[in-house]
């Protein structure tokens, strides 16, 4: 398997994993305070949510694939490429979760991703 394919799997699993986790947590209800009763109630619904479980499973697949990619190439090569997952996730949040991504937020996401790529590539 080529490193490019591994990175594609990492990006897709991280992005769709985050989308699934978000959908599941929105359904589980708002963590309106850090009181134990609230955490227990929302947490109980979260760990039974199919979306949260799917999201968690995708994150594990992404992480294991990330370790495999790291065993073949340097961190400074793999990591900046996986930083593009933030951009893919934002597109997915816009179209799959119908979040309102304003031009300001888009600019911020692009600048943060570029910054992470610079930090990890050097």
């Amino acid at each position, binding site marked *: 398997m080529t490193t490019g394919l591994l990175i594609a799997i990492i990006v897709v699993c991280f992005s769709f994993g985050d989308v699934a986790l978000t959908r599941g*947590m929105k359904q589980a209800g708002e963590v309106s305070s850090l009181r134990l009763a609230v955490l227990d109630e929302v947490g109980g619904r979260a760990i039974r949510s199919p979306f949260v479980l799917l999201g968690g499973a995708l994150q594990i697949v992404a992480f294991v694939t990330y370790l495999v990619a790291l065993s073949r190439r340097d961190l400074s090569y793999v990591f900046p490429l996986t*930083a593009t997952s933030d951009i893919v996730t934002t597109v997915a949040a816009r179209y799959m*979760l119908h979040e*309102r*991504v304003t031009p300001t937020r888009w600019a*911020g*996401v692009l600048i943060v*991703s570029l*910054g992470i790529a610079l930090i990890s590539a*050097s």
Partner: protein
Amino acid sequence: MRDEATRRRIRTLVVLTLAILANGAGNLGLSYGMKSVGPPEAWTPAGLGALLGTALSSAPVIAGGFLLLIFFALFLSLLSWADLSYVLPMISSCFAVSALLGHLVLGERISLVRWAGIALVSIGVLLVGRTGPSGDASRSPAP
């Protein structure tokens, strides 16, 4: 409703800060602990299993793993009310925080390119922060 929006904004910033600190400290613990554990003897299931066994007997690794679990719980809590497209870039700022901590605490040298990256991440976080935790107009009306 404005009070509710303000309270949610403050809660978002508090939980974000805790999440970034838990992530930074957790990774520090894992990194410190795994250095003494060493690399796996082979990238096979048996080799990785042996590595896991050694890692789980290291106190810094266990503490780091526990902090990362706390980070994940805080991340999920944020997603229960805030936009994913808001939370993700804010959480990503932990890379800049780690680089700065490495410089300030461990005295690591930071290259010019890396300083530029830290500056970009900071600018990006300020921009995303201005958009508020939820861009959903029906839930947080403009004042």
